[in-house]
């Protein structure tokens, strides 16, 4: 009887210990933010930058007045097409995720090094506003000169990606065709027999 009561309790304790060991944050919130920027070439003199920022709360308590500000895109180099570089939310619960995205048009050619976005939030246990930084982004080569891709290279890439799948499917289909359709010689024999 005692072992039955003891075991689930001990299991719960072990689980709690493991969870706390992996997060190592006590009961405070831990904001992790992931910033991603991708380039899409519209034409030879325009490039679109799509920025998406995810905010995760990996801590154990809720954070309030979450505000995201991304001022790393100077106005003389980028035009905002859709969305806004800043956003705010009321709260982010423990284990929750918030996402925000916007699009910019790049005006000038060159290498651009972006700074991380800044996230500010409030916690009940502290008076001052807390700060967190998102991941930095890799340098963006705006309007880079792309070498013209050879048709042969494109074909090679396609082959490398789908070659094995195409060949195996074609082998199987060919085998089925061989088995299902009789050969011309045997067809002639069968018609002769009928006569």
């Amino acid at each position: 009887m005692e072992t039955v009561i003891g075991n689930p309790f001990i299991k719960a304790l072990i689980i709690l210990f493991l969870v706390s060991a992996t997060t190592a944050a006590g009961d405070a919130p831990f904001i992790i933010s992931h910033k991603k920027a991708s380039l899409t070439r519209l034409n030879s003199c325009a490039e679109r930058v799509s920025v998406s920022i995810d905010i995760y709360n990996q801590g154990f308590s809720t954070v309030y007045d979450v505000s995201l500000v991304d001022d790393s895109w100077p106005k003389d180099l980028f035009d905002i097409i859709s969305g806004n570089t800043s956003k705010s939310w009321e709260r982010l619960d423990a284990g929750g995720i918030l996402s925000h995205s916007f699009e910019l048009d790049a005006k000038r050619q060159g290498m651009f090094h972006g700074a991380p976005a800044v996230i500010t939030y409030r916690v009940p246990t502290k008076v001052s506003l807390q700060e967190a930084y998102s991941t930095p982004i890799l340098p963006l080569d705006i309007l880079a000169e792309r070498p013209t891709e050879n048709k042969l290279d494109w074909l090679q890439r396609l082959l490398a990606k789908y070659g094995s799948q195409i060949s195996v499917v074609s082998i199987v289909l060919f085998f089925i065709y061989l088995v299902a359709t009789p050969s011309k010689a045997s067809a002639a024999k069968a018609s002769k027999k009928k006569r």
Partner: protein
Amino acid sequence: MAIKILRVFFIGLLLLQFPLFQVVRCQSEIEADVEGSELGIVREDVQDFVGGNFKPAPGVETICLFPKNSAKVVPAGEKTELLVGMENVGQSPLNIIAIEASVHLPFDHRMLVQNLTAQVFDNASVPPSTQATFPYIFAVSKFLQPGTFDLVGTVVYEINQSPYQSTFYNGTIEVVEAGGFVSVESVFLVTLGISLVVLLGLWIHGQFKRISQKTKAAPKVEVGTGTTDASMDEWLQGTAYNQSSSKSKKKK
């Protein structure tokens, strides 16, 4: 005809595979470069810090997150991203030097499977009383067999010119085979399965036919040769019997 088609088909397949060998060779070189990409210019003294054994600083908290991958699935040979959260509770700013990781066997932590490429940073710092996130993109060897492995991730940083090191992750990852649903093995397996089902169906159909024929078949009545018309027999053509019958017919 079929053999001719077969020959042409297999020669065609062989020719199709030739350019593939070159492409595969190039790919491994490119991957190595991408894994080691930095977010800035490499520091000269990085080699002194990476691989060293330092203690963690007291005012630093670390956390690890696999974004949109709570099961910690790592496809072998493909890039996986994880985020390292650093909190600087201390009074001085923190400079991140590098993030490195290694894969170990789950049952014996001393057995090293693979050392993953370290990601070095040049200008990454965490001000005091702030949290910051850093990405770490890695790829395990594509020949690593699927299963559970131990991943140990450490971040090397310095505070006031003193190096420190913290382990942000020391747990299991699930290595799976990269590749979509259509692969060589799956296509062959599916075709084999379908053909076995079809064969079984044909056999059952044959059995049914045999059983139904046994019950339906009417008993055959032996007719004998008596009822056949003798004048219909071809083999009697030109013999005495036929000539006499034709004469009798003429007379009539």
